[in-house]
C-alpha cells in the first residue's frame, strides 16, 4: 500500500518546476509562449516518457507524469504542450509500428509537433461526437469541423477523434492536407492559440487511422487520458492560486494588521487548502488508474477527478481573486489568466455534470440498481 510518488518522480517534478520558473514567467504568458520552451521541455524527456522503450522512449506512464502536469498547471504551461503529450501517448499505445516509428522519435525530441482534435460545437465527449468519415473507393472522406484544437497551425499532425460508420476511431491528419482549413478562434484562454479545423472532403486511408482500423476503446482511453490531464493541470492551477493568495494576505495590511490574521480571511484560505488537497488525491489516483486500472475503474477514477478538480479549481481561483481585492480584478496582476484557463479546461473533455453522471451511472450498474 503506497499512495505516494517515489524519489525519482519527485526529482523529475523539481527539475520541471525549476525549468518552468525561469522559462515561463508571467511576462511570457502575456506575450506568447517562448519558442525555446518545446525544446527545453523535450530535453527533460516529457515528450518521450510515454513512448515504449522499443520505440526509443522511456516506457513510463501517466503516474510518472502526474506531478509534471500539476507543474504545468502551476506555471500555466500553454495547452498545446499537454495536448501533444496526450496525442503522443495514444499513438504510443494504440499506433501501428509504422505510425510509432514515423512520429514518436520526432515527437520525443520536440521537433515534430502533435495536437489533438476532440471538441465539436455540439460535443466534448466521444459518444456525442458527430464528425464522420464516409467510406469511398480509396478509403474514407471527411467533411465537418473540430473546434478548440490547441495551436493546430503549429502542428505537424493532428490526432482527430471521429466516427467511421458506427465505430469511433482516431485518425492522424496533417493540417496541410488537401481540404483542411484552419481558422484561429477567439477564446477565453490568452496563453495559447486555438483553431477550428474545418474538413471539406478530406481523404483518409487506412494508414491514417491509429492502429490501422477504428478502435472505440482507443478513443475512450485517449479521452480519459485527456480528461485526467485536465484534472492534473487544474490541480496545479488551484495550488498556484492558493499560494498567490496566501502570500498576498500575509503581506497586505489594513486596519493596521496583516489581513491574513483575520479569521474571515484565514478560513477562506483553509477551505482552499482542503480543496486543493482533495484535488491532488483525486487527480493522482486518476493518473494511476490510466496506467493500471481496468477500463471501468479508469473511467470512474477519471470522472471523479475531472468533476471534482473542475469545481474546486474554479472555487480556489475565485477565492484567490476575492482575497486580492481590487488588485485581483486588474489585468496586470494576471490571476485572470488562471481563471480563463480553468474555465477552458472545465469545459473540455466532459464538464463536471457529465462526469458525475458517468460516475453514478457506473456505480448503479455495478450495484445492479435500475437507473
Amino acid at each position, binding site marked *: 500500500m503506497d499512495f*505516494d510518488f517515489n524519489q525519482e518522480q519527485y526529482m523529475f517534478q523539481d527539475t520541471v518546476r525549476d525549468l518552468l520558473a525561469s522559462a515561463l514567467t508571467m511576462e511570457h504568458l502575456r506575450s506568447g509562449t517562448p519558442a525555446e520552451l518545446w525544446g527545453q521541455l523535450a530535453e527533460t524527456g516529457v515528450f518521450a516518457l510515454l513512448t515504449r522503450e522499443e520505440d526509443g522512449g522511456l516506457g513510463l506512464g501517466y503516474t510518472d507524469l502526474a506531478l509534471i502536469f500539476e507543474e504545468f498547471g502551476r506555471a500555466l504551461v500553454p495547452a498545446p504542450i499537454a495536448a501533444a503529450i496526450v496525442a503522443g501517448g495514444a499513438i504510443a499505445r494504440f499506433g501501428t509500428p509504422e505510425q510509432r516509428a514515423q512520429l514518436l522519435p520526432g515527437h520525443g525530441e520536440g521537433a515534430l509537433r502533435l495536437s489533438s482534435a476532440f471538441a465539436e460545437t455540439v460535443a466534448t465527449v466521444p459518444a456525442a461526437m458527430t464528425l464522420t468519415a464516409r467510406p469511398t473507393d480509396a478509403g474514407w472522406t471527411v467533411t465537418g469541423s473540430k473546434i478548440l484544437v490547441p495551436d493546430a497551425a503549429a502542428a505537424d499532425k493532428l490526432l482527430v477523434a471521429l466516427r467511421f460508420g458506427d465505430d469511433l476511431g482516431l485518425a492522424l491528419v496533417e493540417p496541410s492536407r488537401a481540404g483542411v482549413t484552419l481558422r484561429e478562434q477567439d477564446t477565453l484562454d490568452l496563453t495559447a492559440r486555438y483553431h477550428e479545423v474545418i474538413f471539406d472532403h478530406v481523404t483518409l486511408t487506412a494508414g491514417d487511422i491509429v492502429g490501422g482500423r477504428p478502435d472505440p476503446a482507443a478513443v475512450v482511453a485517449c479521452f480519459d487520458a485527456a480528461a485526467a490531464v485536465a484534472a492534473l493541470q487544474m490541480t496545479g492551477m488551484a495550488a498556484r492560486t492558493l499560494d498567490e493568495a496566501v502570500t498576498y494576505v500575509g503581506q497586505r495590511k489594513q486596519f493596521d494588521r496583516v489581513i491574513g490574521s483575520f479569521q474571515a480571511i484565514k478560513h477562506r484560505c483553509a477551505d482552499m487548502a482542503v480543496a486543493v488537497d482533495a484535488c491532488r*488525491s483525486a487527480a493522482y489516483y486518476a493518473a494511476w488508474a490510466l496506467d493500471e486500472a481496468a477500463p471501468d475503474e479508469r473511467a470512474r477514477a477519471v470522472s471523479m477527478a475531472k468533476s471534482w478538480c473542475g469545481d474546486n479549481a474554479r472555487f480556489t481561483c475565485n477565492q484567490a481573486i476575492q482575497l486580492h481585492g481590487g488588485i485581483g480584478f486588474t489585468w496586470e496582476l494576471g490571476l485572470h489568466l488562471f481563471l480563463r484557463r480553468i474555465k477552458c479546461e472545465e469545459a473540455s473533455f466532459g464538464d463536471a455534470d457529465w462526469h458525475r453522471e458517468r460516475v453514478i451511472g457506473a456505480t448503479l450498474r455495478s450495484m445492479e440498481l*435500475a437507473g
Partner: protein
Amino acid sequence: MDFTYSPKDLAFRDELRGWLAANLPQGWGETVFLPEDEDENAMFRLDWERKLYKGGWNGIAWPKDYGGRGATLVEQAIFAEEMARAKAPEGLNIIGRNLVATTLLHHGSDAQKARFLPKIISGEEVWCQGFSEPNAGSDLAAVRCQAVRDGDHFVVNGQKIWTSFAQYSQWCILLARTDPSAPKHKGISFLLVDMKTPGITIRPLRQISGECEFNETFFDDVRVPVENLVGELNGGWRIAMTTLAYERGPEDALGRQLVFRQELDQLLATAAKLQRGNRSAIEDGLLRQKLAKSLVGIEIMRLNCLRAFSKSLKGAPRGAEASMNKLYWSHVMQDMFDTAMEVLGPLAPLTAGDAHAVDGGRFQLGFLRSKAFTIYSGSSEIQRNIIAERVLGLPK
C-alpha cells in the same frame, strides 16, 4: 504507487475475516442489528469489546507487553476496514482504548500503566473524558474545574460537559486547574478519577437526535489520590494536547470512510426503490447529480486517507493533515445527509415509528446526528484556524 496489500497483510485480513464471521451473531448486519434501547446497545457493545479481547482483537496497536499485538499501521488500517465491512459494532470503551491508553503509554508512571492498561484492553474498566466545560469548549485551556491539594489527595470541584459514556464508566480522565494564579495553559493538571468516588453526579444530556450518549458531570469535593496525577503537577495541558493529537489517525478514518460508503450505498438502493411521480427517485437528473457529488466526495475521502496513511507509513510525523481530513469529511457527510432527506421527498418527515417511514428512519437519525460532525473533535472553525496557521503559515 501501489494499492495492494502484501501477502502477509492479506493473511492477517483473512484471519480477522474468519474470526468476525465466526463471532458476530448469525445474520449480523442483514437481519440482526444493534439493540435500539440505548442501555442495551451500550451493554451489547461492551460484551462485544470483551469478546474481541478474548479473541486477541482488542487494542491491536498496543505493545505486546500490555496485551496488544503491536500491529503495524497497515494491519491497523485493515482492522478498521474489516470491522466496517462486517458492520461490526464499535467497542464501548473508545475513550479508554484510544485516548487514555495512548496518554498513559506516553506519560503514565509504570505503576499507572500496570494498574490501568490491562483493564482497559480487557473491557473491564470503561473510561470517559472530562475535558470540556460549559465555558471551556474550543478554548479548552480555560477549564475552571479545580483540584486543590489536601494531604495525599486532590479535592476536585467543578463541572464537566459532553462526557460521553460517563453513565457506563468506571474511570474518567480529568483536566483540572491546580494553579489558578499561573497563565491559563500552565496551571492545569491531568488526573485519573474513579467514578465511584463520592461527590460525582452524572446528568444525561439529550442530543438533537433524541439520544443521550453524553452527559453533564458534576464534581463536588471529590477526593482523588495524588498517585492518580499523570505527569507533572501543572503539566496537564501538554499531556492533553498529545492525547488529542493521537485521537484518530488516518488508519482509523479508512474504517469510518467505509461506514459512510455503506450509508451512501443504502441511500442509492433506497433511491432506486422510491417512487417519485411516475418514475423512481434515482431517475431524477438533479438528484443523480447530488448523489454523484456525495459518491465523489466520499471516494475522495478514502483517497485523502490513503495519501495521509502512506506518508505515515514512511515515518512522517502526524501533523495538521488530520485537521484537513476532518474538515473535509465532516462537510461531505453533512451534505450527503441533506441529499438523503431530499431523496426521501414527501417521506422525509416520517421517523422510525411511522408505518411509511423509509428504512426504519435511519436517514433521519443520520441527518440529525450529522450536525455533530462539524462540532465534535474540534469544530470546523477551530480546524480552519489550525490549517491556516500551521499549514499555510498565516499569522495568529
